[in-house]
């Protein structure tokens, strides 16, 4: 019935029921008290008015009888008036008892009134006889014959009236007591119902408190433990974050310094690029001069090659002559030796001829040696010429290649000049970007400082959260003890 309600609503509902029952009990109790008071008031009123009135009637009747007897004895006007006054008082009292009286009481009042009228008539007659005769005895004789029976009849009617009134008062008292008992029973029943309801509500609330609030507090306790652990982790994370932010701050400061250095370098590079661009513009004239110089070198190299080829050809011709001389020297050598051989068999004249032939052979040897040296020199010259020609041709090819490379270099140089101009623009952009980057890094540095401050605050908050979580966990434990859910 109350499954989906919150504990507060349940508690409110229970307290409301209990309060409502208490209010009903209070209202019913008040009504019962009013009823009982009314009944008792009615009993008291009846007792005060009816019973007192009846007793007063009896007293007034006795007083009149006293005044009447005194008049009978003394015959004075005082007692005569007293008797008349007593009858007036009696009749007034009798009239006063009629309102609120029951029909039975009114019947008895009528009986008393009729008996008193009869008695009063004889009393007046007796008193008139007493006054006329002045003889108390004669009047007493008359009284004894006629008035006393009427007096007894009045007294009997008054006794019946008193008895009746007392019976009515007793009945009203019993009735009011019964009503009071009934009211007490109703109040006790309502009190029992209210108490039972309060006990039931208290039991139900206690059970729900132990069950739901205990479970919730258990969850709060476990959540507090988790929150404490998370706060501890957050504290550690905050510390790590703080140290990381410090490192970041240091790095950003270094980056800021580097960025400023880059900005300065970019400015210097921009200046150098401008100077380079100017130098590149001046380099075009130098390139033209260099191209003319290369063309002149190429022409000179061609001439050197031609001269060297002519020198090689001349050396070839000299070599041919030297070969011829060498051939002649060798042939002369052979002839001289053969002449010496022939001369050795010709006696004294042959010996003298052999001496000449030997000298000729020596000359031939010297000639051959000289020719050989010349041949070697010529070979050296030819080798040098060939080497020079090859080197010159290589040089010519190198000049051609250099010329082509120079053309390529010229193209590259002009591209470089254009690229330098582009680089100059890019460098200016880099300079501007680096300054913007420096500004951005400074802003980042400020932001990181703010982040570090926030991180420290977060760490402090995490520490406070951890303490609060621990305190909450303790409070949860205490609350569990209070609701009696903790398992011991």
């Amino acid at each position, binding site marked *: 019935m109350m499954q989906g309600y919150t504990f507060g609503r349940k508690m409110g509902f229970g307290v409301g029921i209990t309060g409502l029952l208490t209010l009903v009990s209070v209202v019913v109790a008040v009504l019962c008290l009013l009823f009982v008071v009314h009944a008792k008031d009615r009993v008291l009123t009846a007792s005060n008015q009816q019973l007192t009135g009846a007793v007063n009637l009896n007293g007034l009747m006795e007083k009149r009888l006293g005044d009447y007897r005194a008049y009978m004895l003394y015959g004075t006007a005082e007692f005569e008036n007293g008797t008349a006054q007593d009858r007036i008082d009696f009749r007034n009292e009798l009239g006063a008892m009629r309102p609120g009286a029951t029909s039975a009481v009114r019947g008895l009042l009528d009986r008393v009134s009729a008996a008193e009228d009869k008695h009063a008539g004889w009393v007046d007659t007796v008193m008139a006889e007493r006054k006329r005769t002045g003889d108390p005895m004669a009047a007493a004789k008359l009284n004894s014959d006629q008035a006393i029976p009427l007096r007894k009849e009045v007294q009997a009617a008054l006794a019946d009236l008193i008895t009746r009134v007392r019976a009515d008062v007793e009945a009203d008292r019993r009735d009011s007591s019964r009503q009071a008992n009934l009211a007490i029973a109703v109040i006790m029943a309502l009190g029992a119902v209210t108490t039972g309801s309060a006990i039931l509500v208290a039991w139900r609330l206690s059970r729900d408190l132990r069950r739901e609030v205990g479970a919730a507090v258990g969850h709060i306790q476990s959540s507090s433990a988790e929150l404490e652990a998370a706060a501890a982790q957050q504290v550690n994370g905050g510390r790590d974050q703080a140290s990381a932010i410090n490192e970041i701050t240091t790095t950003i400061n270094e980056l800021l310094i580097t960025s400023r250095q880059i900005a300065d370098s970019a400015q210097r590079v921009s200046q150098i690029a401008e100077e380079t661009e100017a130098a590149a513009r001046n380099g075009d004239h130098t390139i033209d001069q260099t191209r003319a110089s290369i063309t002149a070198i190429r022409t000179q190299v061609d001439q050197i090659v031609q001269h060297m080829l002519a020198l090689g050809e001349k050396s070839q011709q000299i070599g041919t002559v030297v070969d011829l001389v060498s051939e002649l020297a060798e042939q002369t050598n052979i002839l001289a030796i053969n002449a*010496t*051989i022939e001369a050795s068999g010709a006696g004294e004249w042959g010996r003298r001829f052999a001496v000449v032939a030997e000298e000729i052979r020596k000359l031939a040897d010297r000639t051959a040696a000289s020719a050989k040296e010349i041949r070697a020199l010529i070979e050296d010259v030819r080798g040098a010429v060939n080497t020079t020609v090859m080197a010159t041709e290589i040089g010519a090819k190198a000049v051609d290649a250099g010329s082509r490379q120079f053309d390529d270099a010229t193209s590259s140089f002009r591209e470089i000049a254009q690229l330098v101009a582009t680089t100059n623009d890019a460098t200016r952009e880099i300079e501007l970007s680096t300054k913007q980057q420096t500004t951005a890094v400074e802003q980042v540095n400020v932001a990181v400082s703010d982040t570090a401050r926030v991180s420290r605050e977060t760490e402090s908050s995490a520490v406070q959260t951890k303490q609060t979580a621990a305190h909450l966990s303790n409070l949860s434990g205490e609350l569990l003890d209070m609701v009696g859910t903790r398992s011991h």
Partner: protein
Amino acid sequence: MDALVFRAGSLFCAFPLTEVIETMRPLATRPLAGTPHYVRGLTILRGEPAPVIDMTRLLTGVTGEIERYIAVRAGRGPVACATGPVLGVQAVHATPPEGPSTMFTGASRSLVAAVGRFGTEPLLVLRSIRTVPEEVWQAAAEETGATAGAAA
């Protein structure tokens, strides 16, 4: 004694001048089969076939550069000795046959007449070529006959 001094490989050699006919440049030489290794072949000396002896190979056993032919008188005719450079005619002083030449045997013993010196180098004085095998002379004779037949 006057002798014609020449080089055969690393050796200095000499022929007695009385045995030398003439010196000349190397001539065209035909190889001859079935001859010793020191016989280079046959050549034509003054219209006559003559065997060519490689002196460097004969004396040193190795092959050397040939620069001159020396025509010498042999028993059955002239012989062309292929040598290195001819150094000229000089008077040589040779040791008697009982000297260092006694250590030679075989062909060298019959070839080396005496041992002298040429400056600071040893000098072998050779005697007339007698070691040309008979088949070489026969081949030369056959060559001569063939040459005469071709001329007729």
